[in-house]
């Protein structure tokens, strides 16, 4: 479902080969999937608004150099210069912070998620408001399905971080912890 949607978007924009396109020519494709106002509407595709530029630069770098394998991002980052990566990350960091899931949250689940964030020290590196900092990403208002996918990926070692810090953190955690954490974070302002 997701890959079909992304495929359709990519096909629409990629009249010329991606690697021949400048950063500015590629940006509409980035926004088409990740949301031009910082909030992604596409399943399992992260919202990038207000994401720290250091984190995004490093992820783009890993995509370009194939240290992290996630199509279509490897193709999207192919051929970009170092300056492009930095400028793209700066542009993304200035998008508005993603819109948290609205409505009245389940107070019990929110409390479980908040407590898990404290117990596992998530709130140290990602900060107490989960806005992230430097090489540590913003989690507040992130898509719930993407948060769950990332946490599960760190647990089963399919998601490779720049460092392995996240794999250390999630190792003793259970899948129901991930579900609660993702629920809580997706509703954080």
């Amino acid at each position, binding site marked *: 479902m997701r890959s079909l949607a992304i495929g359709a978007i990519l096909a629409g924009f990629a009249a010329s080969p991606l690697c021949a396109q400048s950063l500015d020519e590629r940006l509409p494709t980035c926004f088409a999937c990740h949301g031009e106002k910082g909030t992604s509407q596409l399943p399992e595709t992260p919202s990038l608004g207000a994401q720290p*530029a*250091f984190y995004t*630069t*490093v992820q783009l770098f890993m995509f370009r150099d194939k240290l992290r394998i996630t199509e279509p991002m490897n193709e999207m980052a192919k*051929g970009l*210069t170092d300056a492009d*990566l930095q400028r793209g990350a700066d542009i993304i960091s200035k998008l508005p912070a993603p819109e948290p899931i609205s409505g009245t949250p389940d107070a019990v689940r929110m409390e479980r998620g908040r407590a898990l964030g404290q117990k596992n020290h998530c709130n140290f590196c990602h900060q107490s408001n989960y806005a992230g900092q430097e090489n*540590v990403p913003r989690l507040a208002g992130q898509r719930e399905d993407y948060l769950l996918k990332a946490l599960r990926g760190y647990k089963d*070692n399919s998601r490779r971080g720049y460092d*392995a810090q996240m794999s250390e953190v999630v190792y003793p955690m259970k899948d129901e912890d991930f579900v609660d954490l993702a629920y809580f974070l997706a509703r954080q302002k």
Partner: protein
Amino acid sequence: MTYLSRRRGFVLAGTLATLLVAAGPAAAQPQTPLPPGSPLIGRPDTEAAKKLAPVAPPPLPAAADKLPLDKLKAPKGFTIDLYASGVDNARTLRLGDKGTVFVSSRIKDKIHAIVDKDGKREVKVVASGLHRPNGIVLHKGTLYIAELSQISKIENVEDKLDNPPKPTVIFSDLPKDEAHGWKYLTIGPDEKLYFQVGAPCNICMPSERHAKIYRLNLDGSGLEVVASGIRQIVGMDWHPVSKQLYFTEHQRDWLSEDIPQDKLNRVTQPGKDNFGFPYCHQGNIPDQEFGWGRSCDEFTKPITLLGPHSAPLGMRFYTGTMFPAAYRNQIILARHGSWNRTTKIGGDLVVVKLKPDGTFRSMEPFVTGFLQNNNYVGRPVDMLVMKDGSLLVSDDYNGAVYRVSYGAQRTAGR
């Protein structure tokens, strides 16, 4: 730094810049300068950077003129020069019989070779597309590479530097955990490969396969446990006289700012030693969760403690003759530096002196200055004693290798 070495540094940097541009995917496009504070040129010096979080090295090596050489301090009579810049995420250092210096990486995918030809140094890529290839060792012309979950080799590697073949895998039956999955690799006096499988977590009950040092025959057969109860190792070496294995060990995070301290250990009973993880930390603190019903006295004690969260990595016995006699057969050890601590410690090389029976005598600073105002300007990883007795030091934060020498070089040019 001498005038000559400074000039050589610039020449080398020039060559590397050309190589990088020519080899990179960005070759066709003109490079525009990166804005100040870009993670691609160095860690930004902001308030946020000083908060408690793992320190990520910039993704690109620092240019030769941006290296912190003027901030590094060594005892009187020692000189610190640049050996090579542009060595991406430089980690383990090893020397080939023909003088090639091999450099591993952990965050990147490459092994580099630094070739010194008539005083001109060139950095070449020996292997790429590897996954956390932190562990390397050379033996009789063969380069052995320990990636996250496999060990491979390139025979007669120094004859093939211009056209290296893909490494041949000799062993791949290893856990695939990312956490503490990178290895340190060394060869024992018994001509076997020694490496560790770290704990796949900060603190947890490890599986039977984790938290151990193993040894393996050079053909990948005969896997055996050498020691257990080990959280993570990124440095091991063999005592030149007793031939015993010494290693640095990282202790758990998030217990407190000041405990536990990281350890320096020694294997005295191969196959039997248990160093205590996850039951006991720093040799005398039972874990709050796993320590119940256990005693620290069940486990092999550390030789000494190396500071809380200080992250000791490479350790080498100094076997050269260039340094004063007091350094001979003593341990030079790199402390990468803490992140899980408000006031950072480490970011230095220390000398650990041993008594004749191999136990701890003293620890004193050797090279300092990687930590400035609670921020890293570089982070030392591993050392290598060169044939002339000088000591190379890798810095994974800047992607550089430095050379520490004693005496002969004039320091008047500084």
